[in-house]
């Protein structure tokens, strides 16, 4: 412990023990990779929420990062309590003077707790890194969602084209043109018109 303290004094932050509490394995991996790239090699990921406090006490981390979608955040509130299980006080990193930091973190969807006494400037870059990684993950998720939507739209348009081709005995290009004209006239998306065609066809079956 004394050895660790000494190294801390000399600014070797790579010794900081960081715990990531996140049930989303992809996001946790993105975060852990970012931390390792930045030189924080002692990173542990907890994805199992049962006995969370006991796991955290066993790991005895300097910094705890938890995503805001995790209901177990309230479990951490217990660490602030005076109680026999507390081994050492823990404080949330973003304190009174850091309104902007807490806002940026909450906005990104993450919360950070550090062991009391650890100078906050020293983990400022950890939090900044987390925030940018969380944003990166959110963008990734949005892109995935967009790709999924695009795919399902294409499927529904294909089905609608097939229905029109069968019923009206027209070509695929004409079926698509018909959908597009209807969409323009009704000021709707082609996928929405296609969905109406598919629904109507199901009802008329």
């Amino acid at each position, binding site marked *: 412990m004394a050895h660790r303290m000494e190294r801390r004094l000399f600014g070797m932050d790579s010794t900081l023990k960081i715990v990531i509490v996140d049930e989303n394995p992809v996001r946790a991996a993105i975060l852990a990779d970012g931390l390792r790239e930045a030189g924080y090699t002692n990173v542990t990921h907890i994805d199992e*929420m*049962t*006995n969370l*406090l006991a796991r955290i006490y066993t790991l005895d981390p300097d910094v705890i990062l938890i995503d*805001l*979608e*995790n*209901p*177990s*955040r*309230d*479990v*951490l*509130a*217990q660490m*602030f*309590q*005076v*109680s*026999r*299980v507390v081994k050492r006080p823990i404080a*949330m990193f*973003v*304190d*009174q003077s850091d*309104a902007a930091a*807490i*806002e940026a973190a*909450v*906005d990104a969807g993450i*919360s950070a707790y550090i062991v009391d006494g650890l100078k906050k400037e020293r983990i400022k870059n950890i939090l900044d890194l987390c925030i940018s990684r969380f944003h990166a993950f959110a963008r990734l998720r949005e892109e995935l969602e967009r790709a999924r939507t695009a795919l399902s739209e294409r499927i529904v348009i294909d089905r609608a084209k097939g229905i029109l081709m069968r019923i009206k005995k027209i070509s695929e290009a004409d079926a698509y043109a018909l959908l597009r004209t209807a969409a323009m006239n009704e000021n709707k998306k082609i996928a929405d018109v296609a969905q109406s065609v598919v629904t109507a066809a199901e009802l008329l079956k």
Partner: protein
Amino acid sequence: MIEDRLRIGFIPLVDAAALIVAVDRGFAADEGLVIELVREVSWSNVRDKLNIGLFDAAHLLAPLAIASSLGIGHVKVPLLAPFMLGVNGNAITVSPALYEAVAADADGDLGDPSVSAQALARVVARRRRVGAELLTFGMTFPFSTHNYQIRFWMAAGGVDPDRDVRLVVLPPPYMADSLSSRQVDGFCVGAPWNSVAVELGIGRILHFGCDLMARAPEKILAVRAAWAANRADVLKRLLIVLGRASDFINNPAHGDEVASLLAVPDRIGVAPEIIRRTLEGRMRVAIDGASRIDADYILIGRDDAARPEPNSAAWLYAQMVRWKQAPLSADALATAQACFRPDLYDFALGAGAMRRRAPSDGVGAFTGPRFDPADIAKYLAAF
């Protein structure tokens, strides 16, 4: 009419009812309020998002607003409670095994919390003699009425909640699972989670919260003090809307409609029947069908329950002092009392009528000294 947009955070619990009905039944729109209700997963999130201004107002644990105003456990941000969203509504549920053990050791009627607490003390002592593990109980947050109620009950039987048992924070949706996997032996939580455990056949309700305290302050509408000052008109309209929603909820003719409004997945998301029975205080306490009726099980604005009383805030503060979360000081007491704002409530909704069935000390605990906000040291010394 001018439209004002508000974002309000809530946790999916039955005592968010007034907020949900106010928005989804159109009362808010009638007052020109466009409210976005944001469902949250943790009290920490609700508090933080309210504190930094992402929310205009929030459904919040009453003691958490006091803790925030005192700067205990987290950043100090003065919060106000101009409206009680819920009084009572909690229950203590135990595993079938613990129920059997407590019943076997009960010297009298197990419905009496003094009897059950003493029985628990005997179970705890016996387990210690045979070297069994400590019993574990769940509650929802360190600054919660659940925490204070379960501690009050245990201590009344001579069980030290910090030494004789393990008391852990568990998010409400995990309570039932933790009981069935035997990670906890019991818990104190709000509606609908006790009923959920009963319906799953994995828990038995030992006490309603109102068995322990006739009137326990539970959830408040919380706003930042600065926000209340800057947006007094919006706050007033919000309180009027909540008052209307409470009246609507308490009209028995609306029972089905209220239950189905609350039951939808992005609101509370449990079966309407459970919500309806909860609001009526008509709950099954065991899977074999035994049920109890208590009109005081949960109060959503009924009998002036929505009017915040500084006395309730003082009682919550006294519990914080009792369990060593806060030091006792006259300043802190004054700060706690000032969180609860009957003046703002009266300004919007008219001065409250006299409470019909309020206990004489405002709380009505099943045992212990009469609560006296003027002498908390003496009150605490009497335990």
